């Protein structure tokens, strides 16, 4: 059996890791928000999503978190009329990525908030450990 405070650190660490991966996918979506195909009728960049899942750590029996899988968002692409574009089809329509900036920003705010919360629990666990060590000082 593992010390609970040490397990707390591990849980908070898994949370930080999961939120970091989420941030990575979000920044990938934002960076590629305008990436189109290179030949006529090509599909543009497809938005990616992350899914979290609970993972029980066998050594300590606590529920940690992990990124279960990243998926592609099947929302239809937005279509723009731009006949001079390299990826324009015979009707002059260009498929643009299905990335919604507002959605990405909202997602990012949630990721930051969750990251801060995880950091806070880790800080508090450290505080409890140092309180325990302070018992033998004085």
């Amino acid at each position, binding site marked *: 059996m593992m010390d609970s405070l040490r397990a707390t650190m591990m849980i908070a660490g898994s949370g930080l890791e999961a939120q970091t991966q989420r941030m990575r996918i979000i920044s990938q979506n934002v960076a590629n928000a305008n990436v189109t195909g290179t030949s006529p009728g090509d599909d543009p960049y497809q938005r990616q999503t992350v899914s979290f899942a609970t993972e029980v750590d066998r050594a300590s029996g606590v529920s940690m978190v992990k990124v279960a899988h990243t998926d592609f968002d099947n929302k239809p692409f937005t279509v723009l009329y731009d006949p001079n574009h390299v990826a324009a089809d015979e009707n002059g329509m260009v498929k643009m990525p299905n990335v919604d900036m507002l959605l990405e920003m909202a997602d990012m705010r949630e990721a930051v908030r969750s990251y801060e919360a995880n950091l806070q629990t880790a800080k*508090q666990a450290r505080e409890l450990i140092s309180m325990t060590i302070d018992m033998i000082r004085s």
Partner: protein
Amino acid sequence: MIMSDIYLSSLGETHSKWLSVRQSVIASNVANANTPGFKAKDVKAMDENSALFSNLVTTDSRHITSGIGNIDGVATGRDESWEVYHSGGNVSLPQEMVKANEVSGAYGLNTSVMKSFHRMVISVFGS
């Protein structure tokens, strides 16, 4: 003489164990705050007589041990959560922060009491 034979010492030990288990349950809630369908958990109120850490026997080393996740007191607090999300989860980060703060305060109080009690014991026996 062993310090844990003294009632106040063992009580303080149980309390600090309970608080650290509660802190780890809170940390697990926070980490899973964005996991779809995750229900917030909390530990039951401390009872000095109850066996806080149930010692389940495992027949295989790969089985989940009676670690801190399997303590007797972990219960889901469905009715107490402040919010429920569309994805089925009900972890409220502000609520978890409040709980973590409670734990931190109580832990500080507990360690101070233990410290001063220890000073009392030392002053009786002479250093």
